[in-house]
């Protein structure tokens, strides 16, 4: 004996497909209730009608509409009006689902990360142009390593003469004409605006990353944690990756080249950004990145399955381990080795 049900009806049939009993619901003018019922079925639950019939026929095997082992029978299928109501409910569910996607931190983090990457590359180009541009008119100006205030200085200068005084250099006899100076000044304004925006973007990444990936952020810092998460296409997928993959995440080109041609495999991907690796001597970087990736992979699993987050203590323990590796290999291996 079978208990067939869909979102608005349920029926009992014997093995030959004769209907013995059925229950139908006609409250389908209330969209909210249809959505609840569709969600209940999607989760594998029974509708009220199905439960009612199951009480009457406890030996019947419940099957949702369309399951292959059901016998052919004249099931009480929805009429046109009921189907239209279900369609509207399905559209409402899809709309809701789309809206819910905005709450997904993986997607939010991805936008933040990509935005910050794009902004950084634009910013670097614009800043380099500004340095060249100002350098053309003020050949004596030297900016050295610290260019952070150049944009602001240029945008606040009244004229090239004013700028030359601020930068404490002499003013050459020829210079930009008025509209040209204005363009240069606005370029400087753009650079300083971009710098501020970039800082705010990174703060937003840090903030979200510390909530979404507390353990990984504590271990590697929030920016690198966010980078790994985005590269892995989400926190859950990162948690399911083996540590070896986490280690070379971001070095796909070198990795596939290794598979294809047998070139040496990459030792590190994005994880290289961490000072434990990038500031270590060349010959221990591979060992350290292996250790760090293994721990990072555990931290990602803790975050994804929402366990007790790691903190300062675990970070210190790993730092000690990294230090031990550095001390164990103080000098490069012999080439003849």
């Amino acid at each position, binding site marked *: 004996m079978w208990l067939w049900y*869909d*979102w608005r009806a349920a029926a009992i049939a014997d093995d030959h497909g004769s209907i013995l009993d059925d229950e139908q619901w006609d409250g389908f003018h209330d969209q909210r209730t249809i959505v609840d019922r*569709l969600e209940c*079925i*999607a989760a*594998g639950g029974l509708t009220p009608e199905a439960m009612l019939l199951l009480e009457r026929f406890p030996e019947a095997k419940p099957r*949702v*509409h*369309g*399951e*292959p082992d059901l016998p052919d029978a004249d099931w009480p*299928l*929805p009429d046109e009006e009921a*189907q239209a109501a*279900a*369609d509207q409910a*399905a*559209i409402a*569910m*899809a*709309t809701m*689902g*789309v809206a*819910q*996607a905005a709450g997904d931190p993986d997607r939010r983090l991805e936008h933040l990360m990509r935005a910050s990457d794009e902004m950084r590359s634009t910013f670097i180009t614009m800043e380099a142009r500004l340095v060249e541009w100002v350098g053309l008119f003020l050949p004596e100006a030297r900016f050295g390593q610290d260019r952070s205030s150049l944009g602001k200085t240029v945008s606040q200068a009244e004229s090239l003469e004013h700028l030359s005084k601020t930068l404490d250099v002499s003013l050459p006899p020829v210079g930009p004409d008025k509209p040209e100076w204005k363009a240069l000044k606005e370029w400087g304004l753009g650079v300083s605006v971009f710098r501020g925006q970039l800082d705010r973007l990174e703060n937003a990444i840090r903030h979200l990353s510390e909530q979404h990936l507390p353990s990984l952020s504590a271990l590697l810092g929030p920016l690198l944690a966010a980078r790994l998460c985005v590269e892995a296409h989400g926190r859950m997928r990162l948690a399911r990756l083996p540590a070896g993959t986490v280690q070379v995440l971001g070095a796909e080109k070198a990795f596939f080249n290794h598979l294809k041609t047998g070139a040496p495999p990459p030792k590190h991907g994005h994880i290289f950004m961490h000072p434990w690796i990038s500031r270590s001597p060349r010959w221990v970087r591979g060992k350290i990145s292996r250790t760090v990736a293994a721990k990072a992979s555990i931290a990602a699993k803790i975050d994804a399955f929402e366990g007790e987050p790691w903190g300062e203590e675990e970070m210190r323990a790993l730092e000690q381990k990294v230090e031990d590796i550095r001390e164990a290999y103080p000098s490069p291996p012999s080439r003849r080795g």
Partner: protein
Amino acid sequence: MGRYNNRRKTMLSWAVMKDGRALWTTNAVPRRAVYGESLRSFSGTEFRRWDPSRSKLGAAIMRTRRDPSWLLPEEGTDVLYLGAGHGTSISHLHDHLCGQHNDLKGRLVAVDLAPRCLRELTHMAKSRPGLVPVLGDARKHAAWGVLLPRKVDWLFQDVAQAGQVDIFIAACRRFLNRDGTGLLSLKAASERWTGDGEAALFDAVEHQLGISGFEVEERIELTGYEDNHVLFAVRKME
């Protein structure tokens, strides 16, 4: 004007027109383009241009060696579309299946996993009655199967994920009528690399479909429109 008038136009259905190397469908929402395609009137009826390089169904219609109209469902019926994407194919299919204000009473259940794609579809569903977008996994039939009270005669799948063939076979078993048409768009790169190249992979798929109770009516190579893609057109035999 003249450029279009010289070519031979063939109607593949009441709504779909082939005009030389272009496809057009009568616009179910007049004066509105869905994805920036061009709109043009032919003898008083507005058509939307169907770009075959953006739609695997469109590409298959251009590439098939048989009468292309057999790739289309009968208008006014229920169909299932798995892997709806951004709705390019869906919109043209809707033109054909439902017509303006869904006068033909067609139903197009479109399933996709990605909220980004559904965003476009739910928007489209507002102006195109008969289109039922579903945010869900093509493999989880229980979640949306109740929206199809009867089996359909036409099923299209384009999911580009590993195991696409198994997904297709399972969906056809549950939702496709006997003798119904199933179209499977297969992306070689989505399957595990078998080492024997693409041709061997496609042969294996054809064999698998054959032993699962389908007759492969045609294997349509989409090269030129969509590289490394093949569309299998099958008929369900049992």
